[in-house]
């Protein structure tokens, strides 16, 4: 489960020279990206347009006033508002977003794995406000051993979404009423959407025992 280097650049905002393709992922050839990954700061011409622009509006200021340093970053990417927040205050921020900022619906909750970062997961929470007809995305970095707060008490919709997130990434949500796998069998070993879980990998022991076949491939 160590930081296995992947051919892709893990962090898009500060492209560093060490993002080299050291080890190939065993399967799924990725021919076209190789040249791009070799150079530290690849397509310069695309870069300025896509760099997330800092976002500063009334709402962001309200969040900042209320939570100060816990709002690590406020950016806009493809005209979509993103708040990067500290995970230990995520629950409070979520409650505030629902109660005061009227983000009454949790549209989606998921994660992205960046194995080279110190905190490997980005927890991504997509919110929608009916009264304001506006979307907001909260992001929080979560380490492998961290236990982010469950948002199920804030939005009931988080229940299954957090279970899926646990199933696929192995993120354990603190205070979730019923944190079990949801899509994979309960005894399955491994979390498939992690970057170090190979696309052809499977829990062979489980497959052999429960399906009576040598391989599911």
């Amino acid at each position, binding site marked *: 489960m160590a930081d296995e280097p992947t051919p*892709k650049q893990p962090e898009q905002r500060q492209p560093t020279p060490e993002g080299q393709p050291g080890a190939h992922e065993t399967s799924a050839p*990725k021919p076209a*990206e190789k040249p791009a990954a070799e150079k530290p700061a690849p397509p310069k011409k*695309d870069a300025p347009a896509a760099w997330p622009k800092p976002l500063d509006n009334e709402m962001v200021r309200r969040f900042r006033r209320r939570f100060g340093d816990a709002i690590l970053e406020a950016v806009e990417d*493809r005209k979509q508002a993103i708040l990067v927040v500290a995970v230990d205050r995520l629950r409070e921020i979520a409650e505030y977003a629902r109660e005061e900022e009227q983000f009454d619906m949790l549209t*989606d909750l998921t994660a992205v*794995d960046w194995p080279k970062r110190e905190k490997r997961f980005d927890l991504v929470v997509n919110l929608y406000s009916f009264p304001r007809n506006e979307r907001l995305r909260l992001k929080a970095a979560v380490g492998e051993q961290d236990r982010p707060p469950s948002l199920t008490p804030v*939005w009931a919709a988080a229940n299954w979404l957090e279970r899926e997130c646990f199933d696929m990434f192995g993120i354990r949500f603190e205070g979730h009423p*019923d944190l079990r796998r949801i899509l994979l069998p309960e005894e399955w070993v491994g979390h498939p959407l992690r970057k170090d879980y190979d696309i052809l990998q499977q829990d062979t022991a489980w497959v052999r025992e429960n399906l009576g076949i040598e391989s599911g491939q």
Partner: protein
Amino acid sequence: MAETPTRHVHFPGMDTTVLGADEIIINMGPQHPSTHGVLRVKLHLDGEKVIGSECIIGYLHRGVEKIAEHRSYQQFAPYVDRMDYVAAVSNGLGYCEAVEKLLEVEVPPRAKVVRTILTELQRIASHLLWLGTHALDIGALTPIFYCFREREEILKIFEKYCGARLTTHAFRIGGLQYEVYDGFEEDVKRFLADFDRKIDEYEALLTTNRIWVERTKGIGVLSAQDAIALGVTGPVLRASGVKWDIRKAFPYAAYDRYDFEIPVGSHGDTYDRYLVRMEEMRQSRRICLQAIEDIPSGPILGKVGKVMKPAPGEVYHSIEAPKGELGYYIVSDGTTQPYRVRIRPPSFINLQAFDTMVRGHLVADVVAIIGTIDIVLGEVDR
């Protein structure tokens, strides 16, 4: 609840180790015909009344999101058709538009209008399949024959357009896969011409049918408050009285050009969801009628390269699929393959409301409630 031994059934917040004299736990599915695929439901019953339920899903899990990370943007497009396989065109539209947003590509107006027409036809086809099977589950045998008769016409149009009836892969990132065939307008117009009379036929069979009304009114009530808290979208949300449709809230494709209404219900029960979907079919017809009259000329594909390398960053884009909000959250790391594709499946999230809807009802109503959510397991499990 302390020191419970191994439990066979797990109901959150409920002690199922000790069952009352009239309590029983039964298993429905995954091979039950009314579960519309491979949904398995464990029901905790008191006599014939449901006092708890648990959905067990994942039988159709194929790891679509994992596959996406190992395909190029174009290569992944056909995979999305296999999620909600009765509304493949809508899946494709959502994915293509999300990637276009990520690439910041503009789609030509002609492509937008053709996309709108095909997607609305797909909505009608999806609702027809829902109506037929839902009515069949409840015991009305006739509607499905009527529904399939019209759905067939739509599938024929798809087949003529792109060669496939079900997993169409109709669109391409940046526009359309194919130019429309000669006679497309006539085919669509011919279908639309008497389709509202066909809807009247279905309604004549059901809307005032006493058995249908008894079986659906007051069944599976979902309040607007619960629906929002549970993240429910689509016709299920609208039947609970929330007037929200992404086609109006965040117009995409060419929807901002056309007049149409968003039907809403008031009771949030199975009957209201039926009425909402019936009206949605009429509104889809209305959109198609406006769109088919005025398809702009011009190119069908925007300026997209053969190698797609979106600049690093992320985007969330969602559309109003027949089942609800279908969203794609795509993270790019500047290479030709997406770093992460997250699909927000409407069926999965709507199914979470099942437990709220089913408690207090009879076993026979469970079938009606599964039908009324309109799930497709290919999308629930991905």
